């Protein structure tokens, strides 16, 4: 049976050409610890990580590679940004489409009495958010921290991130963007966006290995690190260095992952993120067209995936999404993700809690045939369910 991997919103597979080669090359020709020693293998490792940082900075439009912090995933990047910037204020404003990697650190700050949380409702189907309400919630005499996802990880719908950023900037309000589903899937220029911080995984749309993530901190944003320790620099001092990137990167880096991520960034720069986006949109349209006439199907998200990050969420009537996921994997090799996708608030606002939805997500390597197999699988499962008595006994 063929592998039809449609879970790229969880982590991308496969990785593009060059990633595995870069990792193998690193093991063979480098392999020392970065920034620690003066010998050839240490220097070769440092060179490789530095080059990866530069390629990512170029891809993302960062002013300097120093503004990019390597983390182990987007969750760590979001925690670093949220906990660091929350020190500036006692009010947090966010949207109803956030992932738990935003909500859990915020709820913990709330529990500790360190911040209050205002949630502005965003429509999980259309991406619509009341900008006047966003502005009104950000207004106030005390400092605040705003956080918004760029694209919902449940429906893939885009929020008007530039407008949200501009409103935050007008109010001198720190603004964190969760670009987990957009980075590598739609063109992103962190300098033009003007947010205080942009967090993203390295292993989703950026096509790097797992264990990689990035935080872009805008020039002038200086926050507390999450952890402190050895950096290879200022070893004579027992206090943390105050300069980036060392301030935020204590302990041995995931050099192997970072080098793979750098090779993936090189690939994305070559093919162009805009062309990846065009391809993902084409795949979304093909899939939505294919499944829309299946009796009992409900598709969540934008009616036309015009600016798609490559996600479509749906449900079949009378069959739990977890059952559908199991059936299409078992019989057709179609791998998806069913459930709440770590975003309970988004599912509540879609009316799909507590069972969730079945999420399909494409990547650069997804073929038209993959889409057609998934459509056929869904259609067959739905047909069987309708023909079975009583309804739902297909499980």
């Amino acid at each position: 049976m063929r592998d039809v991997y449609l879970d790229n919103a969880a982590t991308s597979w496969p990785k593009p050409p060059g990633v595995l080669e870069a990792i193998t090359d690193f093991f063979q020709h480098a392999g020392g610890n970065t920034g620690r020693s003066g010998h050839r293998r240490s220097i070769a490792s440092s060179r490789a990580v530095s080059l990866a940082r530069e390629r990512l900075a170029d891809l993302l439009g960062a002013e300097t590679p120093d503004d990019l912090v390597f983390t182990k995933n987007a969750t760590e990047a979001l925690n670093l940004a949220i906990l660091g910037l929350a020190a500036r204020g006692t009010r947090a404003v966010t949207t109803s489409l956030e992932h738990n990697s935003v909500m859990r650190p915020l709820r913990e700050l709330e529990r500790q009495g360190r911040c209050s949380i205002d949630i502005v409702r965003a429509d999980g189907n259309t991406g619509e958010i009341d900008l006047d309400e966003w502005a009104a919630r950000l207004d106030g005499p005390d400092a605040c921290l705003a956080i918004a996802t760029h694209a919902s990880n449940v429906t893939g719908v885009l929020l008007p991130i530039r407008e949200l950023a501009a409103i935050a900037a007008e109010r001198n309000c720190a603004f964190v963007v969760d670009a987990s589903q957009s980075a590598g899937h739609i063109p992103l220029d962190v300098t033009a966006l003007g947010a205080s911080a942009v967090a993203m995984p390295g292993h989703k749309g950026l096509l790097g290995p797992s264990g990689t993530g990035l935080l872009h901190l805008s020039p002038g944003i200086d926050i507390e690190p999450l952890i402190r320790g050895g950096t290879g620099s200022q070893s004579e001092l027992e206090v943390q260095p105050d300069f980036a990137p060392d301030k935020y990167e204590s302990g041995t880096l995931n050099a192997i992952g970072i080098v793979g991520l750098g090779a993936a960034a090189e690939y994305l720069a070559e093919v162009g993120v805009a062309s990846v986006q065009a391809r993902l949109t084409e795949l979304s349209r093909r899939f939505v067209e294919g499944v829309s006439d299946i009796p009992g199907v409900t598709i969540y998200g934008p009616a036309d995936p015009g600016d798609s990050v490559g996600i479509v969420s749906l449900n079949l009537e009378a069959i739990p999404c977890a059952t559908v996921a199991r059936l299409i994997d078992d019989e057709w090799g179609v791998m998806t993700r069913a459930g709440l996708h770590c975003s309970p608030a988004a599912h509540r606002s879609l009316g799909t809690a507590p069972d969730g939805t079945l999420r399909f997500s494409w990547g650069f390597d997804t073929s038209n045939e993959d889409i057609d197999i998934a459509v056929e699988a869904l259609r067959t499962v739905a047909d069987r369910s309708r023909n079975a008595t009583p309804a739902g006994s297909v499980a």
Partner: protein
Amino acid sequence: MIWGGVVSFFASEHAMRSERLMQRAGIPARLVPGPREVSPNCGVAVAFRWEDEPEVEQLLKDAKIRFEAVHHFDLDDGLTAEEAAS
């Protein structure tokens, strides 16, 4: 080879980036284990020919790379022969 100049840095990331920058600009440069006298902070430094000093300093400033200091320092690059042989 004896290099006449050494740039020292706070962070090794900046040393790596500077070496790339100089080499791309056609200036001979090489990462070296920083001699204790000039590079106590990050362990590595970038050696260059002293006649390129004005250009090196300008490059670093234009690229906004944070460096500790530029030293006029005779550094015998023992690694060259070793690397050439390996």
